Structure formats: structure tokens, C-alpha cells
């Protein structure tokens, strides 16, 4: 069973890597959105710094949105999803492995890139670490919630935009907590509560979302 999960993980990472341009598009989008911030609000360093947490987080949320579209749609269309559903492994576990691969391909690059981008917006020292850490904790939740929306809208017309309509309200807490933590770090406030809460969200979503997703996939296949 463990081996099956690894296979899925590797397959999906491999698939994403063969379709490099998907990953590159998402990353490029992330970078461009952040680079646009100085253009929009002008170059005053204090204002930029104040906006940096929200900006980076917003960019991360939007970038994830862009990437989620493809998550199950391809598998569904070519019949692979049916095959996954009649596999000896529980569907929820397979989904979890798939999401892990997706996060490695999409979330992780953003996490790794965020300190650099935060620096260009005027964040310094430990704050950059806090930014990366908050993203590391928050982006998996984004993937989990986003995948729920993707699974629910599978095979339904209206595709991407409908998915966004379903997901974005659910994502609001992650965005608030993530950017809040970084804002606190800038002013030297207490960031632990934010991290606890983000961790709590992750702990809640990690077991529940795969169940919801697998239920949604079974509905889509039915």
C-alpha cells in the first residue's frame, strides 16, 4: 500500500515535470504578480513593506488557483480516474498522494521562492523565514481545499471559474492567517497563535479533505 502511494506520487511529479510549462507558468505568474506590487503602489519602502505579506500571500493564492484546474480533469477525461477508482487502494489515499505530488510541483517552488520575492518588497531577516514558514504551512491547505473544489466541478460545464467561485470563500481564513502572521512578524508581534491556527487548519483539512474529494470524485464518476 505504501508502495502504491509512492508510485502515484512519483508518477504525478513526473507528469508535472514532463509538462514543465505548467509549473513554469504558475511560478512565472507568482513572480509577476509580486513584481506588479511596486508598480501599483509606488516605490515607497515603508508602504511596500507593509503590503508585502498580503501581496506575497495573495499571489500564492492566485497562483494555486491557476494550477488547480488541471488536477483531476485530465485523469477524468482519459479514463485514468476510473482506473484509480478500481484500484485496491482506498481512493482517499490515492487522492492524498496525488495532492502531495501537486504540492511538491506547485506549492514547494513558491515556498522556496518567497524569501527572494519578500526581500525585493523590503522584508528582512527573520521575517523572510516567517514568510516562507507561513507559506509552507498554508499552501498545503490551499491545495487541499482547492482540490475539493476541483473535484466537485469535475465534468461540469463552467469549469475554471465555477471552481474558483467554490474555492475562494473557503480559502479566506488561510489568506488572513498567513498574511497576518507575516504582518505580526514585521512589527515584532507574537506570531505563534497564527502558526498554531494555520497548523490547526492543516490538521483539520488533511484528513477531511481527501475524504470529501474522494466522495466528490465518486460522484463525478457515477
Amino acid at each position, binding site marked *: 500500500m505504501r508502495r502504491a502511494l509512492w508510485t502515484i506520487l512519483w508518477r504525478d511529479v513526473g507528469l508535472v515535470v514532463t509538462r514543465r510549462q505548467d509549473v513554469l507558468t504558475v511560478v512565472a505568474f507568482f513572480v509577476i504578480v509580486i513584481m506588479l506590487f511596486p508598480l501599483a503602489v509606488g516605490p515607497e519602502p515603508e508602504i511596500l513593506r507593509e503590503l508585502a505579506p498580503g501581496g506575497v500571500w495573495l499571489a500564492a493564492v492566485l497562483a494555486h488557483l491557476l494550477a488547480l484546474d488541471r488536477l483531476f480533469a485530465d485523469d477524468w477525461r482519459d479514463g485514468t480516474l476510473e482506473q484509480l477508482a478500481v484500484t485496491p487502494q482506498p481512493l482517499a489515499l490515492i487522492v492524498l498522494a496525488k495532492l502531495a505530488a501537486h504540492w511538491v510541483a506547485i506549492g514547494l517552488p513558491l515556498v522556496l521562492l518567497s524569501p527572494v520575492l519578500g526581500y525585493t518588497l523590503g522584508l528582512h531577516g527573520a521575517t523572510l523565514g516567517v514568510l516562507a514558514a507561513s507559506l509552507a504551512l498554508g499552501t498545503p491547505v490551499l491545495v487541499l481545499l482547492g482540490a*475539493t473544489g476541483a473535484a*466537485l*466541478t469535475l*465534468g*461540469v*460545464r*463552467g469549469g475554471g471559474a*465555477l471552481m474558483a*467561485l*467554490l474555492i*475562494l*470563500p*473557503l480559502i*479566506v*481564513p488561510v489568506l*488572513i*492567517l498567513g498574511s*497576518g502572521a507575516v*504582518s505580526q512578524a514585521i512589527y515584532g508581534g507574537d506570531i505563534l497563535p497564527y502558526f498554531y491556527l494555520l497548523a490547526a*487548519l492543516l490538521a*483539520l483539512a488533511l484528513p*477531511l479533505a481527501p475524504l*470529501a474529494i474522494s*466522495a*466528490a470524485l465518486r*460522484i*463525478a464518476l*457515477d
Partner: protein
Amino acid sequence: MATDRSIPWFKFLSPPAFHQLVDRLVPWLWGGAAVLAVAGLYVGFFVAPPDYQQGNSYRIMFIHVPAAWMGMLIYLLMAMYAIIHLAWRVRLADVMARSLAPTGALMTALALWTGSLWGAPTWGTYWVWDARLTSSLILLFLFLGYLALHAAASDREKGGRAASLLAIVGAVNVPIIYFSVKWWNTLHQGISVTVADAPSMAPSMFSALLLMTFAFWLYAAAVGLRRAQVEALERSGDAEWARRAILGRVTNEPGGTKTGDTMIRGRRG
């Protein structure tokens, strides 16, 4: 969910029986809503004193606040029906959830609209990013998402199940969203205006508010049930009772419900 649990009391609500129940109930609900609304508006506009700060503009509250409350309440109800639908495969529960959703969206939209009308005289702007306002907006989107998902699938059964799942996922999130938005707002002190606490209430204000709340309640029940009735008719397709109902001749025979019971129970014993 492999075993087929059954809730006996739902057996009483076979679609024909439900159809008749609604036919009997709805006029009373409408009547009650009208009477309470007239009473509430009367108390609100003629009995309750003007506010010492806001003058008369606060009276919009008698619509604004009940609408806001109903919006939230209806979402919870919807989620409950969704759970019943998925856990026991009761299709009538899906019909109910689906029928309540437009009313819930309407109520939430009404709250936002009256609120922003209220904001113009009190804050000098139609919109600020305040916690309560923002979370109501999010609630509206949860409703819209539910409706859109329901409508987007051309297969009613599938769309219904997906939408129910969404309603449940949303319901788990609603408290989290609510508190995080509140926190977000206290985090940023910069905002100059916040929704004031309700003006200290005179008893007449309070009773007007209560009357209006119940009026909204009855209205929502009436509209929701009527919509459910129509939807149930549509979904029952060409069952004998449904055809008779459309011709306006549903009689009181419990016997002729052969195809009818499939409506209630997704799968027969």
C-alpha cells in the same frame, strides 16, 4: 453507507403526501407572514421612537437585521438537509436544500443591500471592508456557489449530491471564516468606521425586530416549501400522482403511490 439505514418518519412524507401538506400549509404561512410583517412595520415605523443619533434612518434595521439573521440560519438549515441527503440518501432532503438556497441568497443580498443603503447616511459611503460586511459577502458567495454547482450539472441527481457535499464542506468552514474575518478586522486598526452596535433598544424597537424576524421566517418557509413542491413534481416526472397534481386533482388516496416512494428513498429496501 453500504447498508440501507432507514428513517421511518420519512416514510410518511411520500411525495404525494408532501404535495398535499404543502398545499395546505402554504396559505397559512403566507397569511401569517403578511400579518406579522404589517404589525412589525407598523410598530417599527410608527411606535418605535427615533434614534437620538441617527434619527429615522435606523428604521431600515427592521429589514436589515432580520434579513441578515435569516441568511445565516438558512445556510445552517441547508447544510443539515445536505447531511440528511448524503447520509440517508433521502432525495426530498436535497429538494429542500435546493429550494431554500435561493431564499437564503436573497436574504443575504437583501441584508447587504439595505446595509449599504444604511451606510450612506451613517458613514457617508455605501461600502467599507468591515468584518460583518465581509463575512456576509462571503456567505452570499457560498450560496451562489451552491446554486451554481447544482445548476451546472445536467444530471439532477449528480448535481444534487455534489452540491450537498459542497454545502457540508461550507458549513464546516463557516465558523472558521466568521472568526478569521473578525480577527482580520481587529488586526488592522486603520479602519475608521465599524458597524456600530445596535442602537440601545427601546422595547418597541425590539418587538418590531422580533415581529419582522418571524415574518421573514414564515415567508422563507412558505417560499421554500412551494419551491420544493414544484421541484419534487418536476423530478417525479411522469408518476401517476404527479400528473394528477399538475392537473390539480390530487385526492386523498394513500394507495396510488407506486412510483412515488422512489422520490423519498434513493433506493428501495
